């Protein structure tokens, strides 16, 4: 193929103006920490589905569940004992003729309450404790850490038992057991972050501008630790939910006629031979809660700190 050759003369070329500032131009909208994390979380299908399922369970437990049944969780009727799942009783009835559907959602409410409590204790006790301990350092840090070391040695089960012998078993005992040792790991994590962050330049800068301890912690150090804090909180939640169900199962938690997923599973286990449906429904909801919170926590960890991914 023949192409016409043009003579390349210098006047065909011109200098390209390079604007030095062009390199500084931001091509897209800036992506902050939250947006970046959310983008990574959105890619994690398991975590997203889990988030959806948890929202659904919340809705069912607090709004739809009670609305869709005309029987309360405590209403007994011995004439309708052990009815299998039907159009009237969607999950069937138990040995006192109570509607299992209502009882399962009542139990879910207990689980979610415990989840909320554990998260709140983590934030209200664990974070300040760790922040103060890590920021102040020295003697105070030493004492606060010794206290934690002793607390770590006390298993949660023991606390629950001791609380039960003073108060009666029930929601108060459960709350104490969860509150007593639940915050310890959060305090350790936050303290570690504080030790790391307080020596960094931005903290020094803020301090040299006159920021005092509390302001510095609140405005700079804690916001910079939010990733680990949220992730740790999300891992506390399934642990607390499991713990509540376990205590209720062995008779230390929620007492009849009140319902908890653990106590429902406990009484169902006794009837398993003839009425397996009693075990199926509370177990499914419980396992769903556990799986979803675990997957969501995993997803959040990957989203906030991709380096931690394993």
């Amino acid at each position, binding site marked *: 193929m023949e192409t016409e050759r043009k003579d390349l003369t210098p006047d065909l070329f011109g200098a390209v103006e390079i604007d030095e500032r062009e390199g500084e131009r931001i091509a897209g909208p800036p992506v902050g920490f939250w947006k970046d994390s959310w983008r990574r979380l959105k890619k994690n299908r398991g975590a997203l589905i889990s988030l959806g399922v948890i929202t659904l369970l919340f809705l069912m437990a607090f709004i739809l569940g009670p609305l869709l049944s005309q029987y309360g969780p405590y209403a007994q009727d011995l004439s309708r004992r052990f009815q299998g799942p039907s159009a009237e009783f969607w999950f069937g009835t138990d040995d006192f003729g109570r509607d299992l559907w209502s009882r399962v959602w009542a139990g879910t409410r207990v689980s979610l309450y415990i989840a909320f409590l554990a998260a709140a204790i983590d934030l209200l006790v664990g974070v300040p404790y760790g922040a103060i301990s890590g920021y102040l350092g020295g003697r105070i840090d030493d004492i606060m850490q010794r206290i934690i070391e*002793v607390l770590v040695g006390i298993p949660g089960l*023991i606390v629950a*038992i001791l609380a039960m012998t003073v108060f009666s078993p029930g929601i108060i005992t459960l709350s104490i057991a969860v509150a007593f040792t639940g915050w310890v790991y959060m305090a350790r994590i936050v303290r570690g972050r504080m030790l790391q962050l307080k020596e960094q330049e931005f903290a020094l800068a803020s301090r040299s501008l006159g920021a005092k301890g509390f302001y510095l912690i609140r405005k700079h150090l804690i916001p910079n630790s939010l990733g680990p804090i949220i992730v740790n909180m999300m891992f506390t939640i399934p642990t607390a939910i499991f713990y509540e169900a376990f205590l209720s199962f062995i*008779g230390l938690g929620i007492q009849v006629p009140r319902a908890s997923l653990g106590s429902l599973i406990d009484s169902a286990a006794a009837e398993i031979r003839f009425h397996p449906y009693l075990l199926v429904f509370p177990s499914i909801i419980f396992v769903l809660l556990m*799986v979803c919170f675990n997957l969501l926590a995993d997803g959040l960890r990957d989203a906030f700190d991709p380096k931690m991914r394993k």
Partner: protein
Amino acid sequence: MLRYVLKRAAYMIVTLFIIISITFFISKLLPGTPFADEKLTPQLREVLFEKYGLDEPLYVQYARYMLNVAQGDLGNSFYFEGTPVTQMILQRLPVSAFLGVQAVILGLVLGLGLGIIAALKHNTWWDTLAVVVAVIGIAVPTFVLGPILQYIFAVQLGWFPVAFFESWWHSVLPTLALSVFVISTVARFVRTEMLEVLGQDYVTLAKAKGLSGLAVILRHVLRNAMIPLVTVLAPLTIYLITGSLVVEKIFVIPGIGEMFVSSIQVNDYSMILGTTIFFSVLFIIALLIQDILYGIIDPRIRVAGGKE
């Protein structure tokens, strides 16, 4: 090293001291005494109080209680009158220990195997299997798994007895229920560690100098991947304690866990508190062993003063 061990041991003793002190004061707070029987005349009650030292000041009682506990005397059961708690625990210990040890061995063998295979065949269906087992182990607790196993293998298939503890066959289902958590914990741990070690330069070096695949894995990868397995020791102990409560209750096995749960049901406080102390000692010893092993295995921890 010795200093480190002593320091750890000191913390453990303080923790134990606090737990036992709390149990003492709680036992004082409890409603009702073992001598609240209305048939007792005031004189008789006085004699009994004197005999058990209940008329003495609190600090004397406290000191004696501490001394007794230090000697392994956890008091007498309220419910089974006059039977020492220690004796009842020792009577039931062999069954619980047998079940626990069997579950841990099964869990370690299967967990290690699954973890190793999953890491070597990373991103294959073996790997997926390990991850699924790990999720099940965490999300499906013993108190759900136990009844399910009972229903499938005992009620429906009739392969194993439903409950009670009369022969080795009776221990199969409880052991299985107990070990699922161990399997999943160990498998997940080994898989993660193996994957990390497999990517290390010294593994590449070992391969490069011509070692066979098996030798590399046995001598270099496994050895280094096993070290962090120590961290599961303390959680595993807690798990076996709590797990035994559940499993022994479900399968009606005459172990410590079953005794404990039934003493909760009859409000046998002295039994509850005595067993609580026993569990605490068990856990704290496990924690101490774990800390010491840490120190031996990883010198960095000692240098850092044993924090974290």
